[in-house]
């Protein structure tokens, strides 16, 4: 019997540092600026220019390292990685290969299980290291004229995060990247937009435990988390097919991937050498370890950065569970979706209902509609309006099913209040006993057989009678009251 195949996924993440200027030069960092307008002599690698390290980038790397439970190397070094390409005018990239600024961290993440969708699975992946490095420029290929256009604006600071190949599937990889994105955004060290600020490369392989890894495929430049999961899944499927000797069907590869046999992993061109223009980077543990007379602008103190760390997503989730008594699964969804947590907390301020009753509306109804139309939380129904709808339901003015209907209508009409819709569509529950009584009497009179069955103990038929009453009232009768009256 063939053993179960196990996926092996290793991720390499390049996160653009959120800073005003570049890593080694004082040129501004700006999105969508005219080509080469943000380039200094150093960025163009003119001879005689020297790198000047940006303090903010160092702090960003330390902050990110601390948030990911890394050991911060008090002394780290810069190296040159040589390779030839037109968007790297110096012929080398300044990076940290020997001793990077942070090592040995952990990223914990969760995701909803496949089999039981409401079950959350917690996993963790080790972060091998975080290093500071330059980004290259951008190349635009003009195939028609057989030339390439180079824009050197992009040579900003990057944090490269290398994760150990401990993940097994596209699902795990996607969840890990989502968590990383949330952490980086909470820290403010990277804005985390996957179409450029957060670049993910995945190495994907499949093997039977105990056997050596076979084909390994590398996927680069994935620009959304959903595609990340899909691409990895597809590749694993294909590798499995090839290794099992089955023919691979003709499928269009939508992702920029190539198969790399294991042996040829190391690039033949690039080699490393210490960066001779930069001394070692020293960061200090705390104020006590600062050398006397040092200029404070020249000292990066780890303890100070640790004290300034903002609330991380994991802590946020725990806080929501503690404060509102909701399930971890719910708080996970709240934190995972942009703006949903803020929406929920605003809603809780205006409503008297219990959090556990409200959470379903937010994570199911609201989120469901948003996802269907691919919208963000700021639209259609404000927390105040939703609070009003919930109040109507709680005070018995409308039934649960009517509430859902009203919700739909509120969504569609974009701005009408719940009460407006209830009145317009006559969805309010009928509480008038006299009216209900007469309707019930009518039903009872016209269905003598059913009444007989109920009298004889058949309770199920009672439901049928209730159903008939509901039909008469177009679903507006208070079901509890109807039951009482009929009995």
């Amino acid at each position: 019997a063939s053993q179960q195949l196990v996926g092996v996924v290793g991720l390499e993440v390049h996160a653009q540092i959120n800073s005003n200027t570049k890593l080694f030069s004082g040129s501004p960092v700006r999105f969508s600026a005219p080509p080469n307008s943000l380039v200094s002599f150093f960025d163009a690698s003119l001879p005689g220019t020297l790198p000047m390290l940006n303090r903010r980038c160092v702090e960003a790397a330390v902050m990110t390292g601390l948030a990911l439970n890394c050991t911060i190397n008090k002394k780290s070094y810069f190296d040159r990685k040589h390779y030839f390409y037109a968007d790297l005018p110096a012929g080398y990239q300044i990076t940290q290969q020997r001793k990077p600024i942070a090592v040995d961290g952990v990223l914990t993440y969760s995701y909803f299980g496949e089999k039981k969708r409401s079950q959350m699975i917690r996993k963790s992946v080790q972060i091998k290291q975080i290093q500071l490095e330059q980004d290259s420029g951008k190349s635009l290929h003009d195939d028609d004229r057989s030339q390439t256009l180079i824009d050197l604006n992009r040579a900003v600071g990057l944090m490269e995060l290398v994760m150990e190949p401990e993940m097994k599937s596209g699902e795990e990889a996607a969840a890990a990247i989502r968590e990383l994105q949330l952490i980086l955004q909470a820290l403010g060290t990277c804005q985390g937009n996957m179409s450029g600020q957060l670049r993910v490369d995945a190495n994907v392989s499949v093997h039977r435990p105990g056997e050596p890894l076979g084909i390994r495929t590398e996927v680069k430049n994935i620009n959304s988390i959903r595609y990340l999961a899909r691409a990895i899944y597809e590749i694993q499927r294909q590798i499995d097919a090839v290794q099992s000797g089955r023919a691979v069907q003709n499928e269009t590869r939508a992702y920029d991937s190539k198969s790399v046999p294991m042996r040829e992993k190391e690039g033949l061109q690039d080699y490393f050498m210490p960066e001779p223009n930069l001394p070692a980077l020293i960061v200090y543990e705390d104020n006590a370890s600062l050398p006397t007379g040092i200029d404070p602008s020249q000292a990066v103190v780890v303890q100070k950065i640790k004290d300034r760390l903002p609330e991380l997503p994991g802590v946020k989730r725990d806080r929501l569970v503690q404060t509102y008594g909701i399930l971890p699964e719910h708080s996970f969804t709240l934190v995972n979706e942009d703006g949903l947590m803020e929406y929920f907390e605003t809603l809780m301020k205006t409503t008297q209902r219990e959090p556990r009753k409200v959470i379903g509306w937010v994570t199911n109804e609201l989120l469901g509609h948003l996802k269907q139309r691919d919208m963000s939380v700021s639209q259609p129904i404000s927390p105040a309006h939703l609070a009003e709808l919930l109040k109507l339901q709680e005070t018995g003015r409308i039934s649960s099913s009517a509430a859902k209907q009203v919700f739909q209508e509120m969504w569609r009409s974009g701005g009408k209040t719940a009460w407006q819709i209830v009145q317009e569509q006559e969805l309010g529950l009928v509480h008038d006993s006299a009216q209900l009584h007469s309707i019930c009497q009518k039903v009872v009179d016209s269905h003598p057989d059913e009444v007989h069955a109920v009298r004889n103990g058949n309770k199920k038929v009672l439901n049928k009678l209730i159903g008939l009453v509901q039909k008469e009232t177009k679903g507006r009768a208070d079901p509890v009251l109807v039951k009482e009256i009929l009995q």
Partner: protein
Amino acid sequence: MFFFFYTDCPLERLALVDFRTKQGLECLEKAIRFADQLHVVDTTGIEPMDSVLEDRALYLREDTAVDGGCAEELLKLSRKTVEEYFVVPPGNIPLPKKEERSSMLKHSEL
């Protein structure tokens, strides 16, 4: 010390020395033997020096924009530009093949 031949050795390509010829090999051996002198020095317990700046402090710059905006000057340096982009050939220009190399190097010791 022993040598073995790759059909495509990275070092060979970068050094532009042909390892297949007797002369090329002798040149390589000479170079390595020259470097062997380093072993004479006892370096146990000493961190390798990788920069003459070992006693200097790395200067940290403030994150304020003071540079950039010299697109015009820089673009002037390029032979070909198109709408503020530098224009380059579509890929790397490969190193000369072995045959071409030998004609280029026919006057040198190598």
